[in-house]
């Protein structure tokens, strides 16, 4: 069966290769296609990745959190969605866990994430 599943996975190989390798703690900028009637435009959503779920499957999603006007905003994106035009890696962060739900309880200086230096 796993062989069969690879058949569908292969379809997304190209898309997968175009996505930068990011993980929880990184800041990303996502270009999302938005359809309004017949028009299509691109909206950007920049924030910290707080988790990646169902990794290495077609249903893989990731959650991006940003704070705008003192209101926390989280958005879940399917990684392989055709509505995602581009994912830019803005900043790599140093974190010690895979799911950063603790960020929800923090604000301001406390919610900073150290940048990863090479």
């Amino acid at each position: 069966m796993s062989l069969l599943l690879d058949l569908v996975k292969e379809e997304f190989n190209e898309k997968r290769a175009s996505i930068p390798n990011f993980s929880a703690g990184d800041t990303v900028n996502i270009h999302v296609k938005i359809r309004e009637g017949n028009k299509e435009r691109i909206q950007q959503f920049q924030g910290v990745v707080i988790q990646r779920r169902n990794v290495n499957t077609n249903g893989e999603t990731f959650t991006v959190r940003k704070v705008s006007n003192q209101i926390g905003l989280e958005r879940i994106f399917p990684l392989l969605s055709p509505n995602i035009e581009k994912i830019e890696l803005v900043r790599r962060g140093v974190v010690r866990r895979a799911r950063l739900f603790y960020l929800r309880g923090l604000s301001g200086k406390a919610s900073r994430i150290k940048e990863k230096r090479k």
Partner: protein
Amino acid sequence: MTSLFTPEGKSVPCTLIEAGPCTVTQVKTVDNDGYAAVQLGFGERKEKNTPNALAGHFKKANATPKKKVVEFRLEDTTLSLGDIVKADLFEEGEFVDAIGTSKGKGFQGVVKRYNFAGVGGQTHGQHNRGRHPGSIGACSWPSRVFKGMRMAGRMGGDRVKIQNLRVLKVIADRNVIVVSGSVPGAKNSYIVLEK
């Protein structure tokens, strides 16, 4: 199971099914057998594990021994003995039914097995019968429990048919079809597809 995306960006859950190649192992006719049907064989089986009677049956169709043999009622068909049926029989967008054997669930109570509601509360003096079936009948008449009364027992392992699964994709060179949704049974189990 896995998932695919529609052009609009919706994620669709889907199942991959190896649909063929099947060999026509017998064509039944009204004159000969009393009803019209086509028998298809799928999957390879070792010759040493094939009973002699079956081996002869496959030999008649000029085929290797098959693991599964299933009959389909077809009134008029162009298929003849030894023909090979492949996944390109299906078209994208059409609906198929899948018949399989559901996963065994073991001994289950009535709440899981028959969707009984249970008692529904923790209060009013009850403390230890939250998932019990309740009454199973009256007392002095009929002084017995009616046949077919729904009670706890073995669940799963039944023949289940799921109707109207949309064919999302046909991968003809690998004999694979992709249908939306789930099909009965465990991974790698056999199912029957009907158009």
